[in-house]
């Protein structure tokens, strides 16, 4: 700006960029102060959430020590409690959810941005956004009363044919026995994961679609001009451009999947051992533990719950900061919106 000012030759040696100083009026100074404090309030709330969880958890954490991370039981009043089982359960549910949700989200995002006819596009975007706001209790009802019973056949088929892979093994299942009971397949990590997948897929999808639709038209047309088919164009332009958004959207979905409560509570039957067999009845998660035990009266049991909450808080924060930084650094970044 200032370099455009013509100067006499003798001044050029000493030329420094001119300082531009704005003299803010009183009302503007007040406004900037208020706005800054509004921004700071968000930081304060977030810090308070962490601080209070930590403060409340202190009582239990001090007593349990490092065994809090390795114990599988949950009996705070008898002193034996830890989050090993629930953390593993949480991560497994989230992993099942995110594997399914990523496939669905990428597919739908590609469909909306590349394949769908123009007149349908606005409607599809609106309905995916609506799906992201469908209350989790609705998904939970559907999962517990409908999907659970429909998916048993699939669970059984997988465990019959792929039971030699440890995570697909089911204890108590009899292979190829048509009369075997199906209850060993209910309330499993797999079913909870499927329902959570349907909940997080719209969220991941809208981040990805946003990025896909902003792939530069010049490069798209270049790919077509070089003779690419539509899929060739997608593979060489759209997907590389949206790579950051795919990873970031997936991580955002993962963060949401880790914290999902009600839908998971309605489906799983809680067990407090590390249960890596995802098709088998019984699993648990941190949030469902808190939601089912929050009514406990003893302060120590409550403190233990707050400790579990703190673990969940730290976990989701880490996942989300990684997600945010990946999205922001990618080429399509800085435009993501949920």
């Amino acid at each position, binding site marked *: 700006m200032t370099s455009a000012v013509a100067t006499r030759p003798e001044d050029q040696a000493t030329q420094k960029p001119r300082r531009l100083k704005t003299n803010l*009026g009183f*009302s*503007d100074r007040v*406004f*900037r102060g208020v*706005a*800054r404090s*509004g*921004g700071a309030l*968000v*930081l304060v*709330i*977030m810090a*308070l*959430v962490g601080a209070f*969880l930590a403060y*409340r958890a202190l009582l239990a954490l001090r007593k349990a020590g490092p065994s809090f991370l390795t114990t599988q039981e949950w009996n705070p009043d008898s002193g034996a409690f830890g989050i090993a089982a629930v953390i593993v359960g949480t991560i497994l549910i989230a992993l099942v959810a995110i594997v399914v949700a990523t496939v669905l989200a*990428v*597919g*739908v995002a590609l*469909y909306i941005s590349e*394949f*769908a006819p123009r007149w349908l596009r606005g409607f599809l975007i*609106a309905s*995916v*956004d609506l799906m992201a*706001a*469908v*209350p*989790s*209790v*609705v998904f939970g*009802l559907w999962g517990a*009363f409908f999907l659970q019973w429909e998916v048993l*056949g699939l669970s059984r088929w997988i465990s019959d044919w792929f039971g030699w892979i440890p995570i697909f093994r089911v204890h108590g299942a009899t292979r190829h026995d048509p009369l075997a009971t199906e209850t060993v397949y209910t309330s499993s990590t797999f079913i909870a994961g499927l329902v959570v997948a*349907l909940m997080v*897929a719209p969220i991941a999808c809208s981040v990805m679609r946003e990025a896909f639709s902003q792939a530069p038209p010049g490069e798209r047309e270049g790919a077509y001009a070089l003779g690419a*088919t*539509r*899929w*060739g164009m*997608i593979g060489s332009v759209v997907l590389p451009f949206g790579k950051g958004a795919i990873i970031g959207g997936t991580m955002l979905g993962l963060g*949401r999947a*880790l*914290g*999902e*409560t*009600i839908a998971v509570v*309605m489906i799983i039957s809680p067990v407090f051992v590390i249960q890596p067999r995802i098709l088998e009845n019984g699993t648990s998660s941190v*949030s469902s533990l808190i*939601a089912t035990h*929050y009514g406990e009266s003893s302060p120590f049991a409550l403190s233990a*719950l*707050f400790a579990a*909450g703190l673990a969940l*808080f730290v976990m*989701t924060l880490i*996942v989300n900061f990684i997600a945010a930084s990946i999205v922001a650094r990618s080429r399509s970044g800085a435009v993501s*919106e*949920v």
Partner: protein
Amino acid sequence: MTLLETETEREARTTTVTPPRTTVPDRRRPHAHQSPRPLGGVRNTDVFALIGGLAASLATTGLLWIQLGPFTGVLGYIVVSWVLFVVTYALLVSFDEDRPAMVDRVSTVVVHSIAVVLLGTLLFILLYTLYRGFGALTHLNFFTQDMRNAGPLDPLTVGGIRHAIIGTLIELGLALAISVPLGLLGGVFLHEIPGRFSRFVRTVVEAMTALPDLLAGLFIFATVILIFGLDKSGLAAALALSVTMLPIIIRATDVVLRLVPGSLTEASYALGSGQWRTIWHVTLPTARSGLATAVILGAARGVGETSPVLITAGATAQVNTDPVHGPMMSLPLLAYTLVQNPMPDMKARGFGTALTLMVLVVLLFAITRLIGGRAPGDLTAGQRRRRAAASRRDLKRFAGRSRLTAGAYPASPASFPSSTSHGETQ
């Protein structure tokens, strides 16, 4: 063609047939053979391959299901015939096309199928809730009574969700009263005061968007209920909800404000108004419909949250309009509680409650679409009329003033920067 044609020329034209060197456009039939060449479109072979693949896969699977194999089940039929379809279709296409074209066709099929699966499943979830919950909704008492007198064995003609509807509205209203001013302020801050601090705040807001809603409830439980000794009540639930809604509103506001055309704010600065006046008189009014969208998006998310309410509001079967004392029921929590009951009528009530909640969310979204479908500065007819009236009033005022100051101002129509013109040029 000139009139002075020589004899030889005329003779040459009539006797010898020379091929025309150039084509003169035929003006009587404009664009007779000049239709735009279709670049995309469907060819016959595409249709044949599609129909052939479908027929082959359906028939083969049918043979497997009915004649050959011990298979049953609709879901399995669909899955197997889909797999067979993809294979057959790829084979059929590979007869006519090269490899990249075949990959293109197969991937098109796969992407379409994924879209149908997800969108179909989501639609099915809504229809299933409708199907299971509709029975409860047909009784009018479902909306006019609470659950005080309804035991587990009572039929659907007794008891309803009035207390939960009232509770949801009170909690949502309080939560909006807290989170809307703070959220708009935060969004304005992120947009208007860029810098390192606001970048950091934006990152934290993004992390807070994904804060598990349960933890928001746990936070309010730890502070407001355990430390300040407030009851489990509507106010506590509203506080928890506003913690979850605040980041959503901030982010949506930030995005919406970015869409306000820079020329408008710069015009305002150029006329000498400060930052605050520009925001209050130009930026916010221009983005009004988008801001409403932001608020409703937050409300739609907040109204469906179950877990913060579960921890902070408590459960009751009666109407409670006092947000400070006593537990207060809300729709998602009631749905969650009712379906835990083994009696079928209670389950039907639970689904009915979920359906009511769903309808509420869809309504909020419909309102969002209605008012948020407009670009910033794009006005409705009524708004445009009001702007024109305001403009005429200003003109009259200016004219009056110019008469007072004896022609210091010319009495020409004042043209000042209005967003109307911007909206029309778009």
